[in-house]
C-alpha cells in the first residue's frame, strides 16, 4: 500500500485548482451579494448580519486565493 493515488505534481495542482476555484468563486459571490445589499436599511439587524457575513466570506475567499498564490509564486 502506498500513498500515491496520483503523482505528487498532479496532487498539488488538483489541490491548488480546487482551492483557487472554490475560493475565487466564494470571493466574487459574496462581493456581489454585499454589493446588492448596499441600498438596504443598515439599521435592520438581519441586513447588518448579512453584510457582516458576506464581508467575512470575502475575507475567507481572499485568504484562499492568496494561499494558492503564496504556494506557487
Amino acid at each position, binding site marked *: 500500500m502506498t*500513498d500515491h493515488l496520483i503523482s505528487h505534481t498532479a496532487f*498539488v495542482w488538483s489541490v491548488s485548482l480546487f482551492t483557487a476555484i472554490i475560493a475565487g468563486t466564494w470571493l466574487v459571490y*459574496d462581493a456581489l451579494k454585499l454589493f446588492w445589499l448596499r441600498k438596504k436599511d443598515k439599521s435592520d439587524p438581519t441586513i447588518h*448580519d448579512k453584510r457582516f457575513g*458576506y464581508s*467575512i466570506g470575502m475575507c475567507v475567499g481572499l485568504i484562499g486565493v492568496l*494561499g494558492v498564490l503564496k504556494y506557487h509564486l
Partner: protein
Amino acid sequence: MSAAAKASAPERVVSKLNPANAVTASRFLCLPPFVWAVDNGFHQWATLFVLICGLLDKVDGLVAKIFNCRSVFGELFDAITDGICYGFCLIILAAYGWVPVIPVIAVIGLGLLNSALRAIYVKRVGRATNYKSYAMERIVAYTAYLLGFGTSNFEVDFYYWLFVPLMVVVVIHDAKRMLIDAIPGATA
C-alpha cells in the same frame, strides 16, 4: 392551499430513521480510515477521506430535499456530526504534527464557546430557535477546508494562523448579537 389552511394543518411528522439522517450518520464511517491514513503518513488517502466526508455533508441536505424528510432533529444531528467529525479530524492532525497545535486549540475552544452562547440565546428567546449567523456559516465551511489543507500539507501555517483572528472576530460579533442586542421580533 391558503395561508390559513396551512397554519391549521397538522405539522408533518418525520421519522428520525430517514435517508438524509442515514447519509449524515455515514460520515462517521470516514473517521477510522482517516485515522489509518494519517497513522501511515498517507497524505493523499487522508485528503480523499476528508473530501468524502465533506461531500456527504453536502449530499445529506440534497437527500433531505429529494425525499422531503427535513426535520429539526436532522438539522441538529447534522450540526453535531459536523462538530464531531471536524473536531476529531483536527485533533488527529494536530496530534500527529501535521498541523500547528495552537490554532487547533483556538478553533475547538472558540467552537465550544460559540455552542455555549447559542444555548444561552435559545434560553433567552424562550423558544426552540437559534441565531442564524451568516458569518459563522462561512467560518464552519472554512474549518472543513482547513482539514484538506492539513492533510495535503498545502500552506498549512498560512491557512491555520489566519483562521484564528477571523474566527475571534466572528465569535465576538455573534456573542454581542446573541447576548446583548435586542431579540428580533420581541416587543420592548
